[in-house]
């Protein structure tokens, strides 16, 4: 089963490598990982999407928590939450038809064309993983995909509860 984990940790040299090292050392799966400092610059927040059964998930949570740099970890997928991922994608737009179709599909998915070249459109889209997958699939039916990059998901719990110090 897929789980999304939010981790709050000290924004210190080596902290990220401890997390990544732990996952590889204990053969835990990483589907995606994102990291950046939070509004409090002394803290970083990591979002990890992983796959595993309940027993594996329990070990992941405990092992991550055991790292000295880690302040909090919580699983987002067992509660109401918002999950987003950013996609930047370059597609071939070298005919009238493809330019029109790409524009149309982008509008339907509420994306934005952020750069235009002689033959290429660069599009930005945010959403959950399924939406991004659907967008890419739709685009690929109409034109050629040249390059794509996804941020990996970030997530936050809904409601009053906050993950802070």
């Amino acid at each position, binding site marked *: 089963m897929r789980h999304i984990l939010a981790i709050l*940790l*000290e924004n210190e*040299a*080596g902290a990220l*490598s*401890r997390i990544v*090292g*732990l996952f590889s*050392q204990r053969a835990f799966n990483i589907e995606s990982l994102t990291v950046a400092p939070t509004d409090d610059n002394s803290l970083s927040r990591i979002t990890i999407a992983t796959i595993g059964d309940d*027993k594996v998930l*329990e*070990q992941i949570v*405990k*092992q991550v*928590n*055991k790292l*000295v*740099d*880690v*302040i909090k970890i919580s699983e987002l997928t067992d509660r109401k939450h918002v999950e987003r991922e950013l996609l930047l994608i370059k597609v071939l737009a070298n005919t009238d038809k493809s330019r029109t179709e790409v524009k149309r599909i982008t509008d339907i998915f509420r994306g934005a064309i952020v750069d235009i070249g002689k033959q290429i459109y660069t599009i930005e889209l945010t959403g959950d993983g399924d939406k991004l997958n659907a967008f890419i699939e739709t685009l690929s039916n109409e034109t050629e995909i040249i390059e794509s990059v996804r941020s990996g998901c970030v997530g936050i719990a809904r409601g009053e509860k906050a993950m802070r*110090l």
Partner: protein
Amino acid sequence: MTTELFTGAEMVVKALSALKVKYIFGYPGGSVLDLYDAIFQQDEVEHILVRHEQAATHMADGYARATGEVGVVLATSGPGATNCVTGIATAYMDSIPMVVLAGQVPTTLIGNDAFQETDIVGCTRPIIKHSFNCRDLADIPNIIAKAFYIASTGRPGPVVVELPKDMLVPQNKAPYKIELDVSMRSYNPNVKGHPKQIRKAAKAISEAKKLVVYSGGGIVLADASQLLTTLVETLKSPVTNTLMGLGGISGTHENFIGMLGMHGSVEANKTMANADVILALGVRFDDRVTNNVEKFCPNANIIHVDIDPTSISKTINAHIPVVGLVDVVMQQLLDELNDINYTPDEEALKEWWQQIHLWRDTQHVGYEQIEGEKIKPQRVIEAMYKITNGEAYVASDVGQHQMFAAQYYPFAKPRQWINSGGAGTMGFGLPAAMGVKLAFPDKHVICITGDGSIQMNIQELSTCMQYSLPVVIITLNNRSLGMVRQWQDMVYGGRHSSSYMESLPDFCKVAEAYGHVGIQIDTLEELDSKLEEAFSIKNKLVFVDVLVDEKEHVYPMHIRQGSIDEMWIKKGVKA
């Protein structure tokens, strides 16, 4: 008023001294010469020069295991630091408090593949509790204070501190400020067990008909042996120890049923397999204990107490998990049992103990020493036990001799038995024994070893000469890598692939070359008298080389993939 300024090297020494460190074990080299210079100019912290950095880590480790204090290691960058890796892993696996100060090339050269540059923080990441890179020399005192705090609290473990050369040189100075009362927002080890879990545990215990206490290294680390004894006497239950937990309760206590696991006693493993409640204290259900986890103690309600949540339900599901320091939790449990007016179910106990005694009596595993034939290794351990009244510190290497010592030397007290249980590091024994001897110069300190293990750190005989460390080395010499050979006999059709040592040195002469005493024992007749002689020599290291029967196997032994109580008790005979 001007603030006094110090070099990083001076700060390291000042901080160590503020933390009451008596010894550092290490080896100098380019990147730490400033630190060595600072050590030279003071006399509060003594440096012990080893002959290989791996031995420095094991020596610090042995010192830590025997005293409960943090063992401190100092190594230079590159190979000096990487030589520590095995010792760090050994300490990590057995949760031993250790701080390793590792030199590093100057910060300006980091990442340049400079001479003797190795990313030691990266190398050790999977085998440390935590590590620090030092990038501002003013941070040094507090980094060291934090390193000690982390190493010694919660579940103890090794901490690596990387010190680049430019943090230590005389040109760079800063004020010295240290906060010894450390607190860290991201690290707050849980100490007290949850009251609800304590109540559940007490209830399960009070309803048990076949209770067993399974205790481990956590008892030793928490200095909780007295409490364990009280608890066991309150419950009147059988108690078994893991290899790491030996001495947690006296090996001669009437409730003690021996070690459990792969080479544990039949009664301990049978008791576990048939228990209805297992009270697991400071253990981690290691694979050398459980055998096949699918078949592990199917009828037992498991109460698992440990300071490290990751140890709970990692391999075996705990029905009643209790996270907390084992001594604190045991006291909570005793209080709760008192509150609910607990009295043991005498009738059930009587039946349970009758069964356990039956297992013990009918499945007794021993050895047969025939006069005139080769010495049995078990017989050597028994002689060693008798001569030292069971009071010696025994540091062990890894292999058959380790298991024989665990089985035939009933340890009366915790911290008496010093062995690499988790990592199984050959070469651990001698340097660990040296660390113990340094801490307790007036006690008998034995290094029990084999002809294989001793050669993995035999160079430390030189360190023993330099610092007058008169440990007694007892080598059960079977001209073989005994445990490897045993597996090859039992599992690999007797094909002794690379388990035979064809070019053994004359160990007595090796010892004598370093200025020590060598005693050779070849026959049973001379065993006791020559061992007596070895222990009577007080101020010299004695290397006792005992020729033992190379065909002897360690029994009992788990049958692979079986349940915990499926064992060979002698060749071809199952329990």
